[in-house]
């Protein structure tokens, strides 16, 4: 995962340049929230039956399906562990992040 660049306040837009009412002008996907994570979900593909329950439950839409296998988008996964808790096959293990 890429570490985001730290931006100084002076580089940010001025108040005349941004939309009113606090409306965001960037999509939320531009904010990589994966670095909030303490535990990362790791899928054991040999146990996974592709039931998609983790995909349904993920509150960050960080579970992806490429047509063959389930994987986790670590750019956005905040490590809440709901997928691991809900997986009926216990195929997802929460592993502590070590940076």
């Amino acid at each position, binding site marked *: 995962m890429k570490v985001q660049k730290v931006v100084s306040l002076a580089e940010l837009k001025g108040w005349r340049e941004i939309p009113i*009412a606090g409306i965001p002008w960037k999509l939320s996907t531009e904010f990589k929230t994966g670095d909030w994570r303490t535990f990362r979900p790791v899928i054991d593909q040999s146990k996974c039956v592709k039931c998609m329950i983790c995909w349904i439950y993920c509150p960050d839409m960080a579970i992806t399906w490429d047509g063959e296998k389930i994987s986790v988008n670590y750019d956005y996964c905040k490590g809440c562990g709901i997928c691991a808790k809900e997986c009926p096959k216990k195929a997802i293990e929460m592993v502590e992040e070590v940076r």
Partner: protein
Amino acid sequence: MTKGSIKQTTMALSGNEAVAWAIKQCDVDVVAAYPITPQTIIVEKFAEFVANGEVDTEFIAVESEHSALSACVGAAAAGARAFTATASQGLALMWEIVYIASSLRLPIVMAIVNRALSAPINIHCDHSDSMGCRDAGWIQMYVEDAQEVYDTIIQAFRIAEHPEVQLPVMVMLDGFFLSHTLQNVNILPDNIVKEFVGVRKPVEIEVPYAGKVPLMLNPEKPITFGPLDLYDYYFEHKMQQEEAIERSREVIKQVNEEYAKLSGRKYGDGFIDTYAVEDADVAIIVLGSAAGTVKYVAKELRKEGMNVGVIRLRTFRPFPYKELVEALKGVKVVGVMDRSMSFGGYGGPVFLELRAVFYDAPERPVIVDYVYGLGGRDAPPSMIRKIYDELLEIKKTGKVEKILKFMGVRE
């Protein structure tokens, strides 16, 4: 008052009914309100219009004032014209949403029927409720009578929805003194008001991912209202609100002029309404219904040869500092009548603001404060006369006994 060329209907209405009539004619999409004394009749009368099929407004009977304003926020964010009304504890319960409405730049109009805040519980008039949220980013206008509240509610939609403004407006009428007192009110024809206020058109904003989009909740062109905003951009958004309320100054004046052409009724320059202040030695500044009594007393004193004047502050936010300095030119002593307390402050809210303005003025009059009428305590002509006497005495002797006085309270 003189009428314009348009035929108007004179009706005997209380201040609250006058509000309901204005709302009926302003083609409001959503009214969400919860009844509270002394505002109840606004909601009651409007509910009657809804039940009779006289309006096609969506009327939401909510379970609290917090929900009332929240529903208006949602409706206004969806592009609707929204209205609510409350008083005292109701406004207090709305508190967090009051700030959200202005920060999300939603042109909601809210009538506040001024009532004292608990405790002890009191249903009568003072201005502590609306003065409490004077820094909430709303435009605040205080009216003198039932006719003015009808006129000001209509004007409020034009001011709030102006593309340069996009801010909510609070219209204040004194509880019971105005809300429950019958008065002859001239009502404009429905089509004239409808044409004057027009249809609300959300402004467009520019966002890089979608180009120009209307500032509204719209599934076709989705945007997010109310996301997180930290130390990096919160301050910038507050600057935009400050700029918008500054821009409203011109709009308030324009709308007052335009409405005068239509109705024949004009309220000073939209900000202050003056009486005999041009050549006055001493003047009183007052908000709301008490202005009528003050003008009456000033007229009597004028007959007795005393040079006294009155300024009624109609628009409190944005504060008309330039207009006040100009209007008070030559006035030696100014008495501010504050119908609310700023506990532990140097004086009441109007006094503090006015004093600060005159710090930089070329001529500085003596300015003293009279806190009066809390919890509906009467402000009779005798009390006003006492204030004028004191002001004239200060003018004569140059001595100020006390800067802040409490009028009409028992020792």
